[in-house]
C-alpha cells in the first residue's frame, strides 16, 4: 500500500510540528500556508518557554503540559532557546497571598521551584523592582519563534515532508458523501489554482481554525483573543520575569536577544486578518512592565505588536483554559477526512502535534507510535537546503 497523504493547512507551530510527527510516522506530508512559515499567531508570540507556573493554580492540565514540553524542547531544539530560567516575584500583599497557592499548584504539577530571598533575586537580576517581597526561581526560558518552527519544518522536510508556502486553501474538496478529500489551492506566487488530494486534511490554522472548518460545514469552538506586546531596546534581565499572581495584563517580561518584551493584554475581535495595536494597551504594558522592572519606564520602544491567541473551552479571555484540543470532525460534525488542532501554546507545540498525529493515525488505521520526544531536530537553517 502506498503511504497515506496528509495535507496540513497552516505552517505555524502546530502545522510544522505535526508535519514533523507525521513524516516520522511514514506519511506523505504536504504543508500549505497562504504566507511564509509562522506568519500568523506563532511568529508573534512573546517567546516565553513556559514552565507552567503561570497556570499551576487554575489550569493544571496546561501547567503540566508546559513543564513536560519545556524540558523536552530544551533537549531537542537548543538552537532556538535561551534556557536561562525565570522568576516569579511578589510586589504586594495580594501577590504574597497568591504565593501560597502558587507553591501548592507548582508542587501538584511537578514544576520545580525554589524560593530565594529578594536580596538574592536582586543579585541575580539587579534591574528588578527593589521593593519586591518574595521571589521564586522557575525553569522558564525564551525561544525565537521563527527558528523554533523552522527547526520542526527542516526536520520534517528531511523526512520527506513538502512545504508549499504562499499557497492558500480556497476551499475544501468534499466527495458526494460529505468526506473531505482534498483542498482547492491557490499558488499566490504564480496566481495558479489547482487541486491537492489527500487521505486526510489537518486544519492547523490556530485562531483561523473556525474559518477553515466552516469550508466543510464543520464547527470549531475557538475564540480568537488578541493581546498586545511591547519590545524595549534593552536586555534588563537574563531570566523571564513573571508577576506572582493570577494571569493578568502585562504580567510577563521576557528577555530576547538585546530586548525585553512585555506582554500581554487580552481582547476580542471579529476580523482576524488585521488587528490594530491599541495605544492604551501599549501604555498598559509600560505601566505593568515597569512595576516588575522600573528601568522599562525610560527604555526605548523597539516594537509594538499583537498576536491572536486561539482560545478554546468556552471561558472568556483570561478564564479560558490554555490547553489544546484535537477535533475529529467525523465525531463532532459527521464530516470525515478533516481533523482540527487548535488552542494550546507555543510551548506545547510538540505535544499538540503528537495528539493530532495520534488521531490521524487512528482514523487511517496506521499503528506507528510517536517518536518525536527522542528525535533531535536538525538546524533550522536547513529548512531551505533540504529538498522539497
Amino acid at each position, binding site marked *: 500500500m502506498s503511504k497515506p497523504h496528509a495535507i496540513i493547512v497552516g505552517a505555524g507551530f502546530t502545522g510544522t510540528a505535526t508535519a514533523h510527527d507525521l513524516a516520522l510516522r511514514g506519511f506523505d506530508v504536504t504543508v500549505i500556508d497562504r504566507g511564509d512559515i509562522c*506568519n500568523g499567531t506563532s*511568529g508573534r508570540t512573546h517567546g516565553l518557554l513556559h514552565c507552567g507556573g503561570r497556570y499551576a493554580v487554575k489550569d493544571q492540565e496546561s501547567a503540566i503540559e508546559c513543564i513536560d514540553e519545556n524540558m523536552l524542547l530544551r533537549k531537542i531544539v537548543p*538552537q532556538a532557546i535561551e534556557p*536561562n530560567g525565570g522568576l516569579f516575584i511578589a510586589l504586594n500583599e495580594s501577590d504574597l497571598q497568591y504565593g501560597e497557592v502558587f507553591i501548592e499548584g507548582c508542587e501538584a504539577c511537578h514544576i520545580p521551584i525554589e524560593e530565594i530571598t529578594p536580596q538574592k533575586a536582586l543579585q541575580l537580576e539587579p534591574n528588578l523592582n527593589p521593593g519586591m517581597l518574595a521571589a521564586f526561581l522557575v525553569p522558564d526560558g525564551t525561544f525565537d519563534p521563527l527558528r523554533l518552527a523552522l527547526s520542526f519544518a527542516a526536520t520534517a522536510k528531511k523526512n520527506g515532508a513538502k512545504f508549499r508556502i504562499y499557497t492558500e486553501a480556497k476551499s475544501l474538496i468534499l466527495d458526494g458523501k460529505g468526506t473531505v478529500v482534498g483542498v482547492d489551492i491557490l499558488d499566490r506566487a504564480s496566481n495558479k489554482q489547482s487541486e491537492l488530494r489527500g487521505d486526510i486534511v489537518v486544519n492547523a490554522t490556530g485562531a483561523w481554525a473556525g474559518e477553515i472548518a466552516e469550508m466543510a460545514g464543520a464547527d470549531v469552538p475557538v475564540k480568537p483573543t488578541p493581546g498586545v506586546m511591547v*519590545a524595549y531596546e534593552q*536586555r534588563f534581565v537574563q531570566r523571564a520575569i513573571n508577576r506572582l499572581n493570577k494571569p493578568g495584563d502585562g504580567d510577563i517580561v521576557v528577555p530576547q*536577544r538585546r530586548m525585553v518584551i512585555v506582554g500581554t493584554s487580552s481582547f476580542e475581535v471579529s476580523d482576524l486578518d*488585521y488587528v490594530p495595536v491599541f495605544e492604551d494597551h501599549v501604555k498598559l504594558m509600560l505601566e505593568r512592565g515597569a512595576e516588575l522592572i522600573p528601568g522599562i519606564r525610560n527604555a526605548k520602544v523597539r516594537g509594538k505588536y499583537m498576536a491572536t491567541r486561539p482560545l478554546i473551552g468556552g471561558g472568556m479571555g483570561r478564564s479560558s483554559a490554555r490547553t489544546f484540543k484535537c477535533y475529529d470532525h467525523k465525531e463532532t460534525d459527521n464530516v470525515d477526512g478533516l481533523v482540527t488542532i487548535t488552542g494550546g501554546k507555543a510551548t506545547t507545540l510538540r505535544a499538540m502535534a503528537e495528539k493530532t498525529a495520534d488521531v490521524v493515525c487512528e482514523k487511517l488505521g496506521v499503528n506507528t507510535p510517536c517518536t518525536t520526544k527522542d528525535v533531535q531536530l536538525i538546524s533550522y537553517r*536547513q529548512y531551505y537546503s533540504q529538498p522539497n
Partner: protein
Amino acid sequence: MSQNWNITLKVSRQKEGETPHFDEYKMEVNPDEYVLDAVERVWAFMDRTLCYRHACHHSTCGACGMRVNDVEKLTCITYIRDMTHDGGTLKIEPLRNFPIISDLAVDMGTLYSRLESVGARSVLPAPEAEIENPPATWSADDGQYIRLADCIECGLCISACPSAATSDEYLGPAILAGAQANGLKRNPELLALVDCEHGVWRCHSAFECTAVCPSFVDPARRIMDLRTQIIKERFTRLFHKA
C-alpha cells in the same frame, strides 16, 4: 495622539514569469505605525494577491526586510514617520541580491546555507555576545547564561552591499560576521572559507552593511577584524614553517 497622514504605498509587484512593476495604494496611516503595518493593511483590505514575508513583528526573526524608499529596513520596527511625510510616498521593494519568490517575498536559502557553512552560532554564552556596556567582570553564574545571537539573518546587509551586487559567489557581510564571531582560533577550518577571493578580500569597505544592520552586529567591523585574524594566522604559520 498624532494626526493621521494620507500616504501612497508604491509597491513592487512581480508574480512568477512577470517583469516587475509598481502598484500604488493610497491609505490613511498613523505616522507612528510601522511600515510593515501599512504593507499588511494592503494585503488585508486592498489587494489579497500581495506576497510578503513577516513573522515576529518585533525584530527577532529577521523575516520582514524590505527596501523602503531605496534603503534596506526591517519594516516591523521602522516608523512610517521616519520614512515619509503627510502626502508622501513609501516605495516598497524586495531585498536585492536574493531570488524573488513573489512580490516582496525573497528566498533566503543561500544566506541560511552559507551561515551554516561557517558555523554561525544561533545561541551563544552571554559573555561571548559582545553586548554594549557589559559588566566589568562576568561572574561564574553569567557564564551559564545562553542567549540568542545578535544576527537575526534578515539579509539587509547582503542587499545593501555593493560587492554582493557584483558577485553571487561573495559570501557577504552576515556570513563573514558569523565566521568572525565564531573565531578562527576556535575554528581553524574556517580559514580556507574566508581567506579567499569570495571571502573577506572581496569586501570594498563600503560599510553599507553596518549602516543598515538593524541588530547591532556591525558586520563591517567584524570583516575588518577577520582580516586582522587572517594576517595574524598567516604570520603564525610562517614562523611555524621556519
